[in-house]
């Protein structure tokens, strides 16, 4: 095999590999397809083409693979787009192993192009961009070599110098096209794939379960993984939101565990209204990340309306319905890696309708465990005295708890009566202990209360707020007649949010910030965003009330245009300086200069004429420049072909002579020459 041919095949195979990688980086292709393609690529790169004898027959091998993919799609285990991408990869693999002729390169690279499109559909992230560039470069190089191969007869040397320039140009154009494809066009990815999880720092957990069990040991509060990401409207604009994000509530405590008596509603709905809305509702677009690991919806307290839920699974994104469970809990019907949904919440402090509570549920808000230590009731009476207002009582109790008890995450293990242990023995515990104690102390004095769990906090990153796994929290809802459930938190304020290591937290935050910026400016940068950007740039902002409108673009548009112009010019200069300079001979440079000077007065070589021919023609035509040109030509020919090189400075002197001769031309002659040219 000739060397250029081998090089072309390697480039083509690597290009196809890059195209495949652009899909593979999404992490959604089945592992067997990945393996098959990798084997095909390695075999092809080693120069073996086992299918080249029977390319048609071996294509039959693709049929069972197509069948397998079809079954996977039909059984719902694989998304159709992923299956199509996998099949494109397999087709490309078969082509790699069978085709070597330049004329069929198009087929292989077309498969590559399909795979790149598939990659755009699957991920469209930074790695995809890298693979896209690699594909553009490798494919254009291999296509260029195929053209060269077709043009140069067998056994003849490749005219490398002539080829390099157009090849480099073509590659540059392909690269620019790829960049334009990636940056300028609206993102093609349809977010088919699962949202990427934050870096793995422990298993996915948010501490959500059907019950809350006191005691045991937990490392939850120190987990910095991001479980939720939300954009709020109106945007509060604070760095630390410090808000309660409700997951669910509990009304029944059996001494060790909290549970709910409310029965799940049978019917699932796409939109759930928990309570009537109010003025100044807070809109949230929430995204639950894979680190969350539960199906319960989280919303700012107090949620009124939830809906538009999407579930992101390994086989794609789809709408999902919500199921209403007892204790105001909402769950996604379908299990997925991540979810996104929209919520309207009533802002804290607003009077809310507690909703229709059945008598049983009302009673349950006062229920005490059967084996409640009598000291608990006694303690509550001591602290509260004869307080009658539930909210005052709750606040009194909570400040007493915060004052008298200490917060700790070190737990004493399972005990039979964790509440008694907390209140009278250890006098230390975590949020669940505080919340449980407050709730039961209130109930023992006849105030209706329940336990609420969810998250506390909200850390601003970019335009979004995030919650970490460590932000998981429990607090108390006190039912105040006429005001609904009011949040009272017995946990000392310093320990409400997560207590993960600051360093770890800041590392995760940095990652989150980068990812968020990457998402907003690249991955999710849509056509609308582009239009907005251009509009913001060119349309002068109008202050409210200011009717005067400028016709010219604002200053920043001019500045940007100038900056872009300077950047382009600098880049051009840099590139033109960096251009691989062919080792031009002194004589060749000289003849170039002579031809430039002649062209300036309209004497141009026609139809592949060299300076020698031009000079002869001028002499023949008795051109006024002929006496000046012919000695120059002779000297050039001597220097170039006669091994009598130009002396230093000689070419400049000769050119000067030519310049003088041109200057001495009668003006009408010059004009005539130019007109003729």
């Amino acid at each position: 095999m000739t060397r250029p041919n081998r090089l072309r095949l390697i480039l083509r195979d690597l290009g196809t590999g890059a195209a495949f990688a652009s899909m593979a980086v999404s992490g959604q292709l089945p592992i067997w397809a990945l393996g098959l393609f990798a084997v095909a690529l390695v075999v092809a790169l080693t120069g073996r083409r086992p299918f080249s004898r029977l390319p048609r027959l071996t294509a039959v091998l693709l049929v069972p693979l197509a069948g397998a993919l079809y079954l996977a799609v039909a059984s719902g285990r694989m998304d159709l787009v992923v299956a199509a991408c996998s099949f494109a990869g397999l087709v490309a693999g078969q082509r790699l192993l069978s085709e070597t002729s330049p004329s069929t390169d198009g087929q292989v690279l077309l498969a590559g192009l399909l795979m790149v499109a598939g990659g755009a559909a699957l991920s469209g992230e930074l790695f995809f961009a890298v693979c896209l560039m690699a594909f553009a470069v490798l494919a254009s190089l291999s296509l260029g070599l195929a053209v060269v191969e077709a043009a140069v007869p067998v056994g003849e040397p490749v005219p490398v110098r002539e080829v390099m320039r157009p090849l480099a140009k073509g590659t540059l154009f392909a690269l620019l096209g790829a960049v334009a494809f990636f940056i300028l066009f609206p993102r093609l990815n349809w977010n088919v794939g699962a949202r990427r999880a934050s870096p793995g720092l422990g298993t996915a957990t948010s501490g959500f379960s059907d019950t809350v069990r006191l005691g045991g040991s937990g490392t939850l509060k120190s987990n910095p993984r991001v479980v939720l990401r939300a954009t709020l409207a109106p945007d509060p604009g604070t760095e630390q939101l410090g808000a309660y994000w409700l997951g669910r509530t509990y009304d029944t405590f059996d001494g060790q565990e909290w549970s709910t008596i409310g029965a799940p509603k049978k019917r699932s709905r796409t939109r759930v209204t928990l309570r009537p809305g109010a003025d100044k509702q807070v809109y949230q677009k929430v995204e639950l990340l894979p680190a969350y690991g539960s199906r319960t919806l989280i919303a700012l307290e107090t949620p009124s309306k939830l809906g538009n839920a999407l579930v992101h699974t390994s086989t794609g994104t789809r709408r999902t319905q919500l199921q209403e469970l007892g204790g105001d809990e909402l769950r996604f019907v379908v299990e997925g890696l991540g979810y996104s949904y929209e919520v309207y919440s009533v802002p804290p402090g607003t009077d809310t309708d507690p909703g229709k509570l059945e008598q049983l549920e009302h009673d349950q808000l006062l229920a005490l465990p059967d084996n409640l230590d009598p000291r608990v009731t006694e303690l509550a009476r001591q602290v509260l005295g004869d307080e009658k207002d539930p909210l005052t009582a709750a606040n009194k109790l909570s400040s007493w708890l915060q004052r008298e008890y200490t917060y700790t995450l070190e737990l004493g293990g399972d005990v039979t009566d964790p509440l008694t242990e907390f209140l009278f023995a250890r006098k230390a515990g975590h949020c669940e202990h505080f919340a449980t104690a407050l709730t039961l102390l209130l109930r023992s004095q006849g105030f209706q209360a329940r336990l609420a769990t969810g998250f506390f906090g909200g850390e601003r990153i970019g335009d979004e707020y995030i919650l970490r796994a460590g932000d998981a929290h429990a607090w108390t809802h006190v039912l105040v007649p006429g005001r609904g459930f009011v949040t009272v938190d017995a946990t000392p304020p310093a320990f409400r949010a997560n207590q993960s290591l600051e360093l770890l937290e800041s590392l995760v935050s940095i990652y989150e910030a980068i990812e968020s910026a990457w998402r907003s400016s690249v991955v999710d940068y849509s056509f609308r965003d582009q239009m907005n950007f251009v509009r913001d740039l060119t349309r002068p902002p109008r202050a409210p009330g200011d009717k005067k409108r400028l016709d010219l673009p604002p200053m920043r548009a001019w500045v940007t245009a100038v900056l872009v112009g300077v950047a382009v010019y600098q880049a051009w200069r840099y590139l033109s300086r960096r251009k691989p300079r062919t080792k031009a001979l002194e004589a060749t440079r000289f003849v170039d200069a002579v031809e430039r000077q002649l062209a300036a007065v309209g004497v141009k070589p026609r139809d592949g004429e060299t300076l020698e021919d031009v000079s002869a023609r001028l002499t023949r035509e008795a051109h006024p420049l002929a006496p000046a040109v012919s000695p120059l030509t002779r000297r050039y020919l001597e220097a170039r072909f006669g091994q009598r090189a130009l002396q230093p400075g000689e070419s400049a002197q000769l050119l000067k002579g030519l310049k003088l001769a041109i200057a001495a031309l009668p003006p009408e002659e010059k004009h005539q020459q130019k007109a003729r040219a």
Partner: protein
Amino acid sequence: MNSPARAVSPLPSPTTARATLERVAANLSLAVQGKDKEVRLAVTCVAAGGHLLLEDVPGVGKTTLVEAIARSFALSFSRVQFTADLMPADILGAQVFHAQSATFNFRPGPIFRQLVLADELNRAPPRTQSALLEAMAQGQVSLDGATHVLPRPFTVVATQNPVDFSGTYPLPDSQLDRFLMRLSLGHPAPEVEARLLTTRDTSSPVEALQAVTSPEELAELRMQVAAQRLDDTVAEYVVRLAQATRSHGDIERGASTRAVLALGMAARAHALWEARDFVTPGDVRAVMGPCLAHRLLLRSANQGAYTRDEATHLLEEVSRKVPAPR
């Protein structure tokens, strides 16, 4: 003669060589008027040491040109009219029995001259043609086991009629290849023809010509030609031109290696016209048509003069397409 100077420098300088060539060309133009370009090419061919094929209709001055060349260079000259019954011995010579000494003596034929005009070469049977062509290639004649060296410088100028093919034996391509150049004079321009009518008297213009140089000088000229410098890039250019003819779609068989060598040699000679001691791409292009046109086998079914025109046209196209070194 300035022999001491020659002892130091055996070659004439390019300027001297050019003067010689110009002198000869001017002399020839006295006999063949209005054909400066062809005359110069013919002189180039002779200076390059090649054989010349003149292909033209009768009566345009082929013979005149050849005789004028012989006179100008003061070469011994013979003219052989090729006919269908011409035998090899008629040109090469034969062993003749001497009755007095009772031995066979070699009687040299007309080929033993410095310039041989083979008129209407294609009218002779192939056997005779090949005898001549062999002599052209070898510079000697082998007859009955004895080798007879031809005089130096030795040049054959053959003519043939490109239109009238009846009763001819067209030269095989392999033998056409042995001619360095093929030229055709063509009809002179009308004004030249008119001048001929008015000025030509009874005496032949050739007979009035004087020798302007000598066979020795021609030999030196040929040495000078052989010593001309051919730069690597120009050599590469020559090869690329030849390759372009080989890969051209309309050409069945392109230039051979012998053609490449011939092109190089003719270009070397051509450089002398500019008093250069090196070859430029322009030299190569100038002699490319006459050197290569008759060596190409074209795909088209044209014959005779049409083939010639088409080949010239294709070569022009090739020389335009192949970029010259700069």
